[in-house]
């Protein structure tokens, strides 16, 4: 019996090593490939058989020395993502919290709206939204880029789920102590929601960092470009620059992975506690 158990353990663990390999292999192969000549890569794909002597830091030297714009885009992306995370967590958590702890007229409608937004394909909103941005004079501004992301329906949904589990007795206690409703949220409840903030910080950061279509419509000048748009300009068939593409792609994943490793414990906990409620 015991022997049998150990045997199963081995099988399962080997199986998971295998699964992890499949999951990580594409990224590893991209990172390894980033040291290879890029056009060769585009022609023949990633290959098992590669020549060690082909490996070089050329692609990285290229983006670190020749692509001054690359780092400007990097900076822009960092600024936009950071602002988006802070603002969207602030507003979305307020909304989600209110939906969970208060009973008020229109609550169901609002919650239903949140769900419906998740269903609407963004593409059908593009032109009306774009016209709106022009009317509001927000073309070529960071505000224009961030505005549609600030109250994120998925985040609202998630915060609501999380806030459902908050101990409401605390609220009454706080009221007796003279806390305002807002004080209750900011001073007492939101610290309790920290794990959910961590989880959403990762998801919102991920979305903002990788966002492409919308900023592309809104941003006009090169010095405001975000990283994905900037990279895309290097990728046109009218002048391929795969050197920057492959190495640049690797460099775009790195901040996200750092963010994830940093928050990963909260992230998993937050996601766990948030989604089981109800």
């Amino acid at each position, binding site marked *: 019996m015991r022997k049998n158990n150990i045997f199963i353990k081995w099988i399962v663990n080997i199986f998971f090593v295998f699964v992890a390999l499949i999951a990580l292999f594409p*990224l590893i192969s991209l990172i390894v490939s980033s040291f290879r000549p890029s056009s060769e890569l585009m022609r023949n794909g990633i*290959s098992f058989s590669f020549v060690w002597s082909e490996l070089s830091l050329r692609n990285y030297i290229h983006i670190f020395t020749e692509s001054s714009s690359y780092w400007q885009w990097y900076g822009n992306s960092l600024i936009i993502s950071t602002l988006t995370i802070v603002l969207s967590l602030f507003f979305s958590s307020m909304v989600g919290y209110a939906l969970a702890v208060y009973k008020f007229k229109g609550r*169901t409608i609002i919650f239903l709206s949140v769900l419906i937004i998740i269903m609407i394909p963004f*593409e*059908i909103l593009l032109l009306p939204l774009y016209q709106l941005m022009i009317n509001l004079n927000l073309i070529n501004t960071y505000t224009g880029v961030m505005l549609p992301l600030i109250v994120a329906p998925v985040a609202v949904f998630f915060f609501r789920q999380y806030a459902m589990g908050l101990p409401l007795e605390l609220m009454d206690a706080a009221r007796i102590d003279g806390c305002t409703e807002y004080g209750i949220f900011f001073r007492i409840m939101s610290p309790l929601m920290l794990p959910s903030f961590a989880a959403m910080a990762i998801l919102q950061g991920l979305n903002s960092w990788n966002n492409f279509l919308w900023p592309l419509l809104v941003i006009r000048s090169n010095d405001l470009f975000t990283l994905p748009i900037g990279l895309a300009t290097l990728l046109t068939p009218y002048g391929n620059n795969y050197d920057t593409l492959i190495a640049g792609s690797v460099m775009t*994943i790195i901040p996200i992975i750092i963010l994830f490793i940093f928050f990963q414990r909260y992230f998993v906990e937050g996601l766990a506690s948030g989604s089981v409620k109800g």
Partner: protein
Amino acid sequence: MSGLNIKNSEYVHETPNQNPPPSGRKKKNNSLLRLLNSKKVAPYIFVFPFILSFSILTLYPTIQAFIMSFQRILPGQVEFIGLQNYERIFNQTFYKALANSTMFMLLTVIILVTIPIILAILLDSNLVKSKTFFRSALFIPALTSIVVAGVIFRLVFSESDQAIANQIIGFFGFDPVRWQFTAWSGMFLMVGMAAWRWMGVNVLYFLAGLQSIPKELYESAEMDGANLFHKFRHVTLPFLQPIIIFVTTISIIGGFRVFEESYVIWQGNSPGNIGLTLVGLLYQEGIQQNDMGFGAAIGVVLLILIFFVSMIYLLVTGAFKRGDE
């Protein structure tokens, strides 16, 4: 998953509607502040940003899109053309896109629900060592942007016989495949990319769901002589059901909305429309070919489709009823 319970009053903690709170420290002269702080008004202030952004950034553009779907929109010339856009929709190309999106949706729902459940159960058991590592390894692909994922898939599934995918199948004696040019392999690439990126996320959802199952239930089931399958069938599954409904719903919606996977592989026209999806058709007609009215009509049809399918699913699984229990 209460998130899908439209009538969710039972989840709202009772908050007495009278105000002000029983406290003697009110300032008499500041009735406005008091009003703002009342439990009646405060929730509206909290949700105000959402109402504002919803009306300006979603409701208004959606209504605009509905109006546009009845128009022919050319620069400087906008005219109402009744149902003409809708009459044009239902042709070969649309059915192809519908078939592709539906197939993608079905495959991703099947793959991204069953496999993550199994992985999550194994990860939750005490059979696996270094759980954190495996959990993270599964999750990291989700951190990869679709663009980078596209680069990777293009390189791995290049048509060259020296590319990894063709090397592997060559090892088993198959001829190299032109992955991006045939119908089955095109669908395989799209589903594969989605599965790779979202597997870890769904595993986390199910892991979270498993935490809520009281361990005693398993113990008592064991005492009753239940085998592994029985435990899964009668303890695990019922407890996981809300999460399964949640993940499935999100996957249905996401499946119908598929676009990026196709876009990063083919950048527009795929050979034989093997990668054409409904949103891809919307993008192609509405944005690339500047037929905004027609594009909007496709969007409206898509919206109705998504709404109906997910509602039917939720009704069948009883997600609404659960909310009223």
